[in-house]
């Protein structure tokens, strides 16, 4: 009898010790974190997954590139007929509180933060993993993930935060640096700015050995069929993309010196041939098939496998009688691509010649229409940050006196087929931004940063005056209720 007890006791002890392993169930229909992040390729897939999700319609696949934020940036003529324009007329008059736009903003917010969560999960696991990474990959992955986290927070701050130049101490957004099941509270805009800068700086250090600095963007797959992970650097947040983001954010946060030094570093990389200005022959030499996004100048782009949707869904004149996004005719003819010396606008501008095509009485925006060479990677690119913006940042941050930056603008203009400006004013700089970054979701942030009217039209009264009602989006209700 005693024996029996001993056996049973032994058996149950053995059972209990082996229990833990037996109880460690791995789902088959889903990937568990432990399984996924047990190899280098798991981290690479997760990182790539985050890049892919940036193409979501709620983020840079539409809302934060060509659609929502660009409407807020005054880029398009928005009609008032609801049957054609749906909810867009509300947005063009900055009615953020309608059910539709509250829901849309909520979606964008949730999506951005869900990708931030993905970054944090990746970073946290990377920190404690014992997976052996090839070469410098661990640092590259970590750097890119930090930069992604900073970039997403930065755009949420630019949307939902206060006008930084006016009120940087106002509560803005939460900054998530790690996965947590309890919510983080809102931080002031300047505190968020510090976090963004810290993350970007750390990313830049981690990416110090980024092959982009030596081998360029490498926009083709390795011929031996090996991993593409370290290729196509312009489709990743590479060293220069992070530097460019630092320039962009420093300018936004009013740190002119930093903005100047980061932007000129990237300009130097451009000059060094890593991001060369677009080849004229590709633009005006092949008028039937131009490189409309000036792909060689793009420092960081998303790769969207159906980028054509952007053109077909928003800009294609064949969409009529449905809505089509285009620039106000007067804006185009008398300011952006006209008006001569007082505006810097000229019809010879490459940006006009290749991207604006006439149908009927109007010109339509063709930046996102496919090239004939359909398999080309350029047809998938949604530019996130480009060399041209670095010239404009350098021009603006060179000195307190904006006129001092005219040389940088002229350098850019000389590569756009238009003549030199004699003097640079803030207005002309804004027009240059419109010419260079139209349809890339940056104009709203520019007006918000400079706290100037949003230029919908040549008629000043139609351009909404700067105010927090225009520039500060209400936080989603899920944020304020919980």
């Amino acid at each position, binding site marked *: 009898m005693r024996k029996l007890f001993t056996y049973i006791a032994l058996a149950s002890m053995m059972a*209990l010790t082996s229990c833990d392993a037996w*109880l460690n169930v791995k789902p088959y229909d889903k990937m568990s974190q432990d399984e996924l992040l047990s190899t280098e390729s798991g981290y690479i897939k997760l990182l790539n997954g985050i890049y*892919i999700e940036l193409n979501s319609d709620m983020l840079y696949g539409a809302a934060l590139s060509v659609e929502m934020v660009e409407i807020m940036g005054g880029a398009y003529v928005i009609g008032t007929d609801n049957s054609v324009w749906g909810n867009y007329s509300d947005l063009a008059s900055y009615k953020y509180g309608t059910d539709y736009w509250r829901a849309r903003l909520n979606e964008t917010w949730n999506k951005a933060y869900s990708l931030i969560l993905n970054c944090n999960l990746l970073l946290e696991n990377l920190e404690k993993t014992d997976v052996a990474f090839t070469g410098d990959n661990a640092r590259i992955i970590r750097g890119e993930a930090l930069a992604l986290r900073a970039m997403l927070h930065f755009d949420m701050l630019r949307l939902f935060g206060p006008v930084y130049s006016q009120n940087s101490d106002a509560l803005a957004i939460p900054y*998530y640096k790690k996965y947590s*099941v309890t919510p983080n509270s809102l931080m002031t805009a300047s505190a968020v700015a510090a976090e963004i800068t810290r993350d970007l700086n750390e990313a830049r250090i981690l990416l110090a050995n980024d092959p982009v600095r030596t081998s360029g963007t490498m926009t083709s797959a390795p011929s031996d069929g090996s991993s593409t992970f370290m290729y*196509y650097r312009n489709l990743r947040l590479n060293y220069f993309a992070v530097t460019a983001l630092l320039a962009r954010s420093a300018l936004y946060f009013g740190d002119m010196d930093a903005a100047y030094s980061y932007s000129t570093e990237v300009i130097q990389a451009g000059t060094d041939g890593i991001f060369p200005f677009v080849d004229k022959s590709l633009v005006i030499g092949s008028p039937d098939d131009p490189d409309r996004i000036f792909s060689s100048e793009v420092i960081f782009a998303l790769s969207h496998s159906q980028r054509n949707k952007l053109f077909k869904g928003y800009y294609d004149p064949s969409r009529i009688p449905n809505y089509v996004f285009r620039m106000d005719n007067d804006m185009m003819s008398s300011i952006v691509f006209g008006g001569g010396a007082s505006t810097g606008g000229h019809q010879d501008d490459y940006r006009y010649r290749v991207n604006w095509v006439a149908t009927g009485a109007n010109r339509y925006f063709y930046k996102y229409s496919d090239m004939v060479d359909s398999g080309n990677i350029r047809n998938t690119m949604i530019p996130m940050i480009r060399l041209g913006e670095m010239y404009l940042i350098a021009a603006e941050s060179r000195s307190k006196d904006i006129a001092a930056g005219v040389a940088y603008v002229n350098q850019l203009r000389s590569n756009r087929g238009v003549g030199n400006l004699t003097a640079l004013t803030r207005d002309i700089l804004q027009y240059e931004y419109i010419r260079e970054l139209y349809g890339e979701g940056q104009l709203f942030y520019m007006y918000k940063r400079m706290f100037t009217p949003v230029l919908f039209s040549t008629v000043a009264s139609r351009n909404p005056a700067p105010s927090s009602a225009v520039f500060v989006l209400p936080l989603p209700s899920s*944020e304020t*209720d919980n």
Partner: protein
Amino acid sequence: MRKLLFISMLVLSSLAAFAQGGQTVLSGTVIDAADGYPLIGVSVVVSGTKTGVVTDIDGKFELKAPQEKCEIVFSYVGYDDVVKLYTTKNASSFSRIVMSANAEQLADVVVTGVYERKKESFTGASATFKSDQLKAVGSSNVLQSLKTLDPSFKMMESSQFGSNPNVMPDIEIRGKTSVAGLKEEYGTDPNQPLFILDGFETTLETIMNLNMNRVASVTILKDAASTAIYGSKASNGVVVIETKAPARGRLQLSYKGDFGLSLADLTDYNLMNSREKLEFETLAGVYKDNGNDPFAQLRLDNLRNERLKEIERGVDTYWLSEPIRPGFTHKHNIYAEGGEDKIRYGIGLSVGNVGGVMKDSDRKTIEGNVDLIYRTGKFQFSNKLSINWLDVTNPTVSFAEYAHANPYYRKYNAAGGVDKYLYYPEEGVDDYPVANPLWNAHLNNWDTATGFGFTNNFIFEWFVTKDLRFRAKFGLTKQDDDEQTRLSPQHTQFDDMGETEKGLYTHTQIKELVYEGDVAVTFGKLIAKKHMLNAVGGFNFSNNHRQIYGYSATGFTDDQFDAPSFANGYPVGDSPDYNESLKRAASFYINGGYAYAERYLIDFNYRLDGASMFGTGNRFRNTWSVGTGWNVHKEPFMQDSDFFSLLKLRGSVGNPGNQNFSAYQAFSTYKFNGWMTNVFGTGVILNALGNADLAWQETTNYDLGVDMTFWGDRVNMTLDYYWKHTDPLLAVITTPGSMGVTSVAMNAGSQKTRGWEAALRVSPVYRPSEGIIWNISINATSAKSVYANIGNSFAALNESGKSSLVGTTRYYDGGSPTAIWAVRSAGIDPATGKELFIKKDGTYSFTYDVNDEVVVGDTQPKVEGLIGTSLYYKGLSVGCYLRYRYGGQVFNSSLFQKVENIGTQDVYNNQDKRALYDRWSENNRDAYFKGISLVQRTEKSSRFVMDDNSLVGESFNVGYEFPDRIARKMRIGAMNVQLTMADIFRATSVRVERGIDYPFARTVTMSLGITF
């Protein structure tokens, strides 16, 4: 029976320790009066001494008899004692001792599924019901009967699904321990008790399908002392069901049949007739053009006149009669059993069809089972195999659509056919078409499910010594279900779709494999006649693997040809479903009990549980419980009086847990971004955020109880007071979007419940020897719960509840989970017809402010229970059970949605009569409801909260057991018939539509049992 035998062996074995030399040896065999088979372990004691033995495995005993005259007592649990005088000369008359079972005693054992205890020495709160008790109050299924017998066992009535035989009910024992809303999230009801069938965990559906005639007994375990042996699965209570074991003897065949008729109970519907509806529409302004366009007005006038003409022609269609039918139910069970002492066998077949009260609503079941018991020496092997098949059909048009149809439309057109639309607006008219519910019903649509599965439970027992038993169990269940639905391409749902998108076929396959193993050692010994020791220790593991496959197909062109092969393709953007969950659990448990002189009892349980659902940070959990009892009636000072045959005080405390949660909530899982790949290949992204530190939900449970039987067994009373503290709660909490997920499973706050239960049975006439008994039983239960420490965790749920038209549940500290929250209303102002609200500070206002919400009622009644009476006269029995509910409230959604809040679309549906008659107008200023308006929104206020007191005729039955002589004449062994009526009437203080998608039923069943 086998188990009883064993216990008695344990209890009485010590008595056998003594023997004296040089005396006559009494020897013989003790046999069972019922079947002539030997009884093992019967104690044979010389009265007044400690001298005694127990019978061996063949029922034989040898007792050295004393020198002088004495009485020899044969006793055995569950059997009447046999006292035989030994005259020193009649030794030979001891060769054959016949003992007969005591039916009353049988009920006095608590079967927990892990161990058995005499009720008298058990410290837990439990209730046991035998097969005949269950059958007496109902014949549909075990759980239906259980709810009539024990008020703490509640089957929640579903206003949505009514008496749909294919919808599983929500079940609770002693109320909820988990936050509502989790069922939707997880698919499993976190408040559902644990079901144990023949010692193995099983599902609610299995119990619902189980033919009642196979059931031997059901035990409900309620408090910590009785449930803690199930550890982290036990906080919702445990229902232990034992099926009948084959009886010894020559082959015996029995047949049990149930024949039922169900009729829909539509008395709660209070719909308008055609004239009333048209008047209502007219008052509501349906026939008034808002734009004052004379042409549009002319059209509306014509429309109204046409309808009026129809009404004048006598059109007043009663749509509710269309989808319903008398539901016929029949169930048969044939069981053949027999065998001798070593081998016993039983083979059964159950066939049944439950016909619901809606057309095309059927539930067919076939179940075969084979029970085998083999016993040799100290070993026993038993195996129960059951194979089941299920075939289910559901109506494809919900009852609500008929309730919505207007009475001024005709069902059929002039040619006698069914039109697709009852009303179709002319070209260019901005109006809603009205579909004819008969159209969708007459199409070739279907909604079916079939299932096939088997369960095999094997138990090995080794009776190591008289006091020690070793048991190993292994159970395996495989269940495959297959659900298919089809909507015809002509279904109105597809009206606006292209030809290739019409029709829809869906197919879902569910495969489940469950196995469970258990090894246990049981020990029981009476030491020095006073110290009773019991102990059970064991190890248990289980594995539950479930896979769901599904897909849809679309593009059918024909109503008739419905095979999936006729589909044109898959719905655009649809992908196949695949879902898998694997849950594992492993546990070690121990139970010990000590009783001193049958008076002072103490019990303890400990269980260590590990489950795969919980994260690595919290994988294992301890459950413990302690119970004590005092059998006052056994005290020497009570011995003089035989007034009390039972007076037991007991108390227990413990912390059972709950693991009815989803399989992977503790893990973060990832998925491929299926919608896009890029030059870097594929990507993955977070799918669900896990919470590895999720703590198990745990309920600390206290119970104080008293059991009494007195006045010569005529009065039987049980009282229990309990309080439960669930801490932490586990809930899916809506989070700020910035957390990256919109909801996360978290531990948040706690819930406290206090309640009491009382059951009283009085037998004014109690002459069991003549077969005449009259019982009156009253039982009652009451409970109150409050939330604590939940803070702001449920703010999002509160907000969405406030802003939505439905939902009166709020989550605040100190609030009850069943409280109804709304703004207080002072009624309709007779002068203006506007509703006057009472603000939080008590002032009056015409403006509704959601922040003025307070508790205006509670759906939990103050007291609820059953009153019953039963009369046995010889073979005849009559029973009647009424359910009462007092002191609860209900938010009357019929008034809220079908009297007020009738919007521009709803006005085309038929409505409650009160929407016409009880509305405010200049001529009816004292009305309870606002004036008729299509645009006015009514907010949730206390005006719609009403007292919900009710009395329901839950069960009436008449039975007759044919006397032996008649049975013999008919050349059968025994025969009984019974007539049962369920839910036959319902008196209630509030008039609210019940059975929205499926009506409730009243059922009459005739049952027949024959043993050949």
